[in-house]
């Protein structure tokens, strides 16, 4: 695989009365062809600007931004218009054309790309079938639910067969059930059509559901990036840890931990669970060392087809024997003192 989008020291500065604002500040990122790449950050982190640099809705201030072979920083507006036909985009508020029907919305990019009428009609039917809205072709956007609107948005974005799909907070205005439907559809877009997707979101759940890799953005800079599994299981930057703690509640903290200490004598440790952690064997041997254990907190789930989570154990017994059990646990997985 080779990068289809490459940020090289990209900066975007907006002038403002209070002095220039560096919305994107020296970003280096490579997005591979065919992957789903997540960009997560709190509002104001610069993620919306970052994604708009890719299709030139915002122009790069400095640096290189190679998109499918062209440095969009150097393209003229005319060249950018041509480039945008290869880059679909969907939005939080859907941004459908209220004056056009569902079919008319999907037809718009095809007209822009100069498709003849007969080809357009065939393509529209194909796309509406793909997103499951063939029966709503003649409805107006106002007559659709939020989830349906985003499906139209996706059909419109895919109309001219782009290589890249930019999704800007595409599920933030939807309820949880509809969010799942739309995310499934985006997954299908990626796997069945091979389209590279860049997902901008402030919800880690979205990244967890569909992204292969993720970059965490803070103050216009990439705080960290990598495979989603690594970011979830070993978050490094503070901002990432904050995000992870919003979706994963598998470690006792604060009042929870105090309560556990009161009700359980002995040492409290948290063991990370992953595929291949053989905790059971170690714990089974604890009894012969005179150590009793209790599972007091934790959770195990699946992320990208791998188990992950943690269990918090209260170990009670002679101190050196407890230490032996902890040492054996450390041989099979990582163990932290509860704090």
């Amino acid at each position, binding site marked *: 695989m080779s990068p289809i989008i490459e940020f090289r020291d990209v900066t975007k500065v907006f002038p403002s009365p209070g002095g220039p604002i560096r919305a994107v500040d020296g970003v280096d990122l490579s997005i591979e062809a065919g992957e789903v790449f997540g960009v997560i950050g709190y509002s104001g982190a610069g993620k919306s600007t970052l994604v708009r640099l890719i299709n030139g809705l915002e122009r790069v201030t400095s640096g290189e931004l190679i998109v499918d072979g062209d440095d969009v920083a150097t393209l003229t*507006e*005319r060249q950018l*218009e*041509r*480039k*945008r036909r290869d880059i679909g985009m969907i939005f939080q508020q859907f*941004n459908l*054309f209220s004056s*056009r029907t569902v079919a008319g919305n999907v037809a*718009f990019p095809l007209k822009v790309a100069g498709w003849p009428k007969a080809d357009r009609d065939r393509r529209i039917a194909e796309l509406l079938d793909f997103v499951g809205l063939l029966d709503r072709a003649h409805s107006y956007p106002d007559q659709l639910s939020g989830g349906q609107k985003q499906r139209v948005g996706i059909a419109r974005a895919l109309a001219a067969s782009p290589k890249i799909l930019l999704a800007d907070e595409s599920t933030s205005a939807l309820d949880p059930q509809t969010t799942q439907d739309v995310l499934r559809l985006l997954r299908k877009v990626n796997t069945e059509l091979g389209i590279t997707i860049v997902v901008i979101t402030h919800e880690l759940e979205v990244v967890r559901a569909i992204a292969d890799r993720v970059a965490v953005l803070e103050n216009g800079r990439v705080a960290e990036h990598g495979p989603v599994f690594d970011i979830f299981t070993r978050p490094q930057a503070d901002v990432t840890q904050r995000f992870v703690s919003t979706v994963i509640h598998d470690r006792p903290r604060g009042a929870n931990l105090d309560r556990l200490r009161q009700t359980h004598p002995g040492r409290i440790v948290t063991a990370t669970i992953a595929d291949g952690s053989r905790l059971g064997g170690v714990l089974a041997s604890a009894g012969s060392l005179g150590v009793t254990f209790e599972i007091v907190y934790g959770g195990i789930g699946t992320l990208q087809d791998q188990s992950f989570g943690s269990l918090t154990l209260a170990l009670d017994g002679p101190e050196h024997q407890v230490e032996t059990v902890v040492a054996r646990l450390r041989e099979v997985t990582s163990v932290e003192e509860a704090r």
Partner: protein
Amino acid sequence: MITALPAASDFDWSLHGPKLLEALGQTVYMVTATLLIGGLLGMVLALALYTTRRDGLLANRGVFGFVNLLVNVFRPIPFLILLMIVAPFTVELIGTRLGSTAMIVPLSFAATFGVSRIVEQNLVAIDPGVIEAARATGASRWRIVLTLLVPEALGPLILGYTFVFVAIVDMSALAGTLDGGGLGAFALDYGYKRWNFAVVWITVLVIVLLVQLAQAIGNRLSRRVLRR
């Protein structure tokens, strides 16, 4: 007997009837032509204002400043004064300053600047996200201006133009005072000048009906457009 109250019998159908009908025809002619000419030119100015403003699709300080100044200068001029200012220009263009056709010139002039602000307001209300979505498809800025802006603002635009229609009827009545013909001239010549208030009131009734009809059509059309 209170003499200020008009007697219906003062309206002489055989004399006033045909004149009223003729005046109505002139008014409808002036107003329709003005709505078309002023409506179109005003739309062009509005699109220029909307697209060249800061962060607009065709942002251009020079063009915006010029058009904005133009509108600000001409729009506040009272129509009666405008009638006089435009008269020499009308003579040049039409050959005379008298009659309904000549009146279309100052009426269109005034309507153009009035329409420009109303249409501009309706365009500003378009969700910028919709324009961004169009740009993201690779549409050129001119394509967006020519094919997307007006349809997206159509519902409010119809109401805006209905408002303008009523304002033009108002202005056209004033045109009558400067030999422009129409319902204003009829009420003035056959009513007020002869102290015949039956004629004045019946003219008022006709104008009210005309305006009601226009408003009803406008409301209906815009509802139809907005409900889709």
